[in-house]
C-alpha cells in the first residue's frame, strides 16, 4: 500500500489517494471517493534522488507516490538497474570509488585510448576518401598559396629520381606516393607539405636553399614518414576524440566552462603535432640510413630555414614543431641507436 496523490487523465486537478493491490491488479482509492478505481499500469518512472515516483496509467491518469514511499518494494523492482544505480549514487563510499576510477579512466583514455583509436581509425579510413581529401586540398592550395614551379626541367627530373629512390625504399604499403614541385612564394617560402593521400609538395625555395641533395632527400623522407604513419588522419581523429571527451566531461557544463575547455584542448592538438614531427624525423633517419644517404643533414637545412626565427630553436607550448635543438638531439640519438643495433 502506497500513499500519495492522484491526477485524473490530462488534468492538473489533484486529490490525495492510496494505491494498493498488486502491479497486475491495482486498486486506487481516492480520499473521500466512493468506489476504488482499478487502473491499468502503463509505466512507473525510474527512481532518481529526491524525485517522487510516478505511476502512469493506460488512461493517462497519474498516481504520484509520497516522498520516501517504498515503491520498489511494492513493485518488486528493488533489484532493477536504476534502483541499484540510485542506491549506488547515494553511497559516499561508492561514489568516491567511482570518482577515482573515472579519473583513472579519463587519464588512460587521454594518454593511450584516444591515440590508439585514432591510429586504428586512420588505417581503416577508405582509400577513396583519403584520395579525395588530397584532391580537394591540392586544388585549394594551388589556387590560393602556390604558383607553378620555376625549377629547370633537368633539376625537376633529378628531384623526381631522388623521390623515386626514397619511395621505393619506403615500400608500397599505404597510399601511393607522389611528388609535386611548386613555387612557395611569400606566404609559404621554403617548405614541404605531406597530404594524407600520399601527395608530397616541395617548394622551389626549399630546393634552392639546400646545400646538398641529401638535405632535400632527408626532408622528403620526413614527409614520407608523415604519409606512411598516417599522421594527418591521426591528427584529425585525435582532435575529434579530444572533442568527444570534452563533451562527455562537460555534458552539463555552461557556455563559459565550455569555452575555456575548448581553448585548453586546442593546446593539446599542438602537443600531438610536435609528437608527429618527432616521429617523422625518426622515420626519416631510418629511411635515409637504409638508402645509404646522410640521415642528419636535413636538420642543417631546417636550421637554415629557421635561422631568422630565434623562437624556432626552442620548444614553446604554442609551437607546432619541436625546437631545433631538441630535434637535432633526437635525430643524433636515433642515429647512434641504429649504429649500435
Amino acid at each position, binding site marked *: 500500500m502506497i500513499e500519495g496523490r492522484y*491526477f485524473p487523465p*490530462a*488534468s*492538473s*486537478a*489533484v486529490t490525495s489517494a492510496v494505491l494498493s493491490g498488486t502491479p497486475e491488479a491495482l486498486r486506487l482509492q481516492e480520499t473521500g471517493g466512493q468506489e476504488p478505481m482499478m487502473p491499468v499500469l502503463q509505466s512507473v*518512472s*525510474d527512481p*532518481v*534522488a*529526491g*524525485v*517522487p515516483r*510516478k505511476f502512469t496509467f493506460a488512461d*493517462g491518469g*497519474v498516481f504520484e507516490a509520497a516522498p520516501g514511499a517504498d515503491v520498489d518494494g511494492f513493485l518488486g523492482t528493488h533489484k532493477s538497474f536504476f534502483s541499484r*544505480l540510485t542506491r*549506488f*549514487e*547515494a*553511497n*559516499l563510499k561508492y*561514489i568516491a570509488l*567511482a*570518482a577515482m*576510477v*573515472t579519473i583513472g*579512466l*579519463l587519464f588512460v*583514455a587521454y594518454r593511450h585510448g584516444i591515440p590508439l583509436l585514432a591510429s586504428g581509425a586512420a588505417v581503416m579510413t577508405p582509400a577513396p*576518401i583519403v584520395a*579525395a*581529401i588530397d*584532391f*580537394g*586540398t591540392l*586544388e*585549394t592550395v594551388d589556387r590560393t598559396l602556390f604558383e607553378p614551379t620555376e625549377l629547370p626541367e633537368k633539376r625537376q627530373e633529378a628531384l623526381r629520381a631522388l623521390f623515386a629512390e626514397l619511395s621505393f625504399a619506403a615500400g608500397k604499403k599505404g597510399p601511393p606516393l607522389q611528388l609535386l614541385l611548386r613555387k612557395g612564394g611569400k606566404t609559404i617560402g621554403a617548405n614541404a607539405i605531406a597530404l594524407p593521400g600520399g601527395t608530397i609538395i616541395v617548394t622551389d625555395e626549399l630546393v634552392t636553399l639546400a646545400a646538398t641533395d641529401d638535405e632535400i632527400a632527408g626532408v622528403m623522407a620526413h614527409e614520407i614518414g608523415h604519409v606512411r604513419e598516417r599522421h594527418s588522419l591521426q591528427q*584529425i581523429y585525435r582532435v575529434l576524440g579530444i572533442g*568527444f571527451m570534452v*563533451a*562527455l*566531461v*562537460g*555534458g*552539463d*557544463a*555552461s*557556455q*563559459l*566552462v*565550455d*569555452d*575555456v575547455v575548448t581553448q585548453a584542448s586546442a593546446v593539446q592538438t599542438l602537443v600531438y603535432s610536435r609528437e608527429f614531427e618527432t616521429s617523422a624525423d625518426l622515420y626519416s633517419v631510418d629511411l635515409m640510413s637504409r638508402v645509404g644517404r646522410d640521415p642528419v643533414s636535413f636538420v642543417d637545412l631546417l636550421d637554415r630555414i629557421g635561422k631568422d626565427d*630565434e*623562437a624556432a630553436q626552442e620548444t614553446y607550448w604554442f609551437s607546432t614543431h619541436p625546437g631545433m635543438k631538441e630535434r637535432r638531439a633526437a635525430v643524433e640519438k636515433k642515429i647512434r641507436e641504429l649504429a649500435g643495433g
Partner: protein
Amino acid sequence: MNTNEAVPLGREARRELSFSFTGSATEYFGIWIVNLLLSLITLGIYTAWAKVRRQRYFYGNTWLDGHNFEYHARPVKILIGRIIVLGLLVLYNLLVLISPFFSFLLIFYILAFPWILNKSMAFNARMTSYRNVRLNFRGSYWGAFFSFIVMPIVALVSLGILAPLASRYAYNYIGRHLGYGTARFETQAPLKALYGNLGATIIFVILAAVVCGAIGLALSAGIGSFSYGDMGDEEFARLLASGPLVAGLLGAYVALALSYVFYAAGVRNIAYNSTTLDGKHRMTSNVGRLRYVWILVSNLIVTILTVGLMRPWAAVRSWRYLAASTGLLAAGPLDDFVDEAAPEGNVGAAEFFDIEGIDFGL
C-alpha cells in the same frame, strides 16, 4: 498602467508562489560521477541515459506550489537523435575537408535553422510536465526566421543599439508560442525597460573593462618581471613586450562574456515579468544581475581549480539561484489546467541544439 487590475480575481486571492530547488551538490555529485563513468565505459552510448537522468534530477527536484516538474524524454530516442546529428556533423566536416567548396551547405543550415529551432523547442516543451499537464510549443517558420536570424543580424549591424529590440522579439516569440496544456503563455516585453537594461549593461561593460584590463595588466607585468629576471633573454623580452596587448585582448574578451551574462539576466527578468499564463497568472523573475555574474564567474573559477570535480556543486548552485529567483503570481488554484494533443517536436533537432550548445533557456 497596471494590467493586474484588469484581470478578474479567481476563486481565491492572488498568491505569490516561488520556484524552489531541493537538490543538493553531494546528491548530484553521485549522479554526475556515475553518469560520467558509465558514459566512458560505454564509449558515449550511455550519455543519452545520463542526460535523461540529469534532467530528471534537476526538473524533478524543482518545485512550485507543492508540485514538482518532470522530464519525460526516452533515452533511446535521445540516443537515436544524437547518432543522427553526429553522423550529419561528421559528414559535413568530411565534405569540407575534401573541398572547402562544400561550405555552401551552410546556407541550407541557415534556412533550416528556424525549423530546427521550432522542432527543438517543441520537443523540449513536450518532454516537460507539471501537475500531469505538459508544456507545448507551436512555432511558425517565418516568425522564427525573423526573430532568430533577421533580428540578431540587425542587432549586430547596429552595433548593439537595436539589441533590446532583438531581445524583445526573441522572448515575445518564445512566450507567445509556448503553452501549458490548453492554456497559452503570452509575453510582451516592454521596450523601455529593455533599453534601461542596455544602459545598465553599458555602465557594467565600462567598469568590467577597467577592472579586467587592470587585472590583466597587473598579471602580465608580474609575470614579465618575474620571468625576465629569470631568463635574461633578449628574445624572450621581446615576446613579453606583447604581453599587455594579449592581456588587454583577453580582458576585453572576459569583459564581453560577463556583460553578455549581465544583459541576458536583465532581459530574463523583464521578459518573465511581462509573461502571463492563461491571461491571469503572471510569471515573475528577480535575478540579481551582478549576483548572477558573480555566481557564474566563481563557478567557473572553482570548476577549473578543482579540474572539474566541483562542477556538480556549480551546476546545483546556479540552478538553485535561478529557481529561487523565479515565481508565479497565481490568480487562483492551479488545478484547472487540461492537457491536449500537441506537436511532438523532433528529437534530432533538440539534440542538435544540445550538442552545438545552443540554449535559449536561462
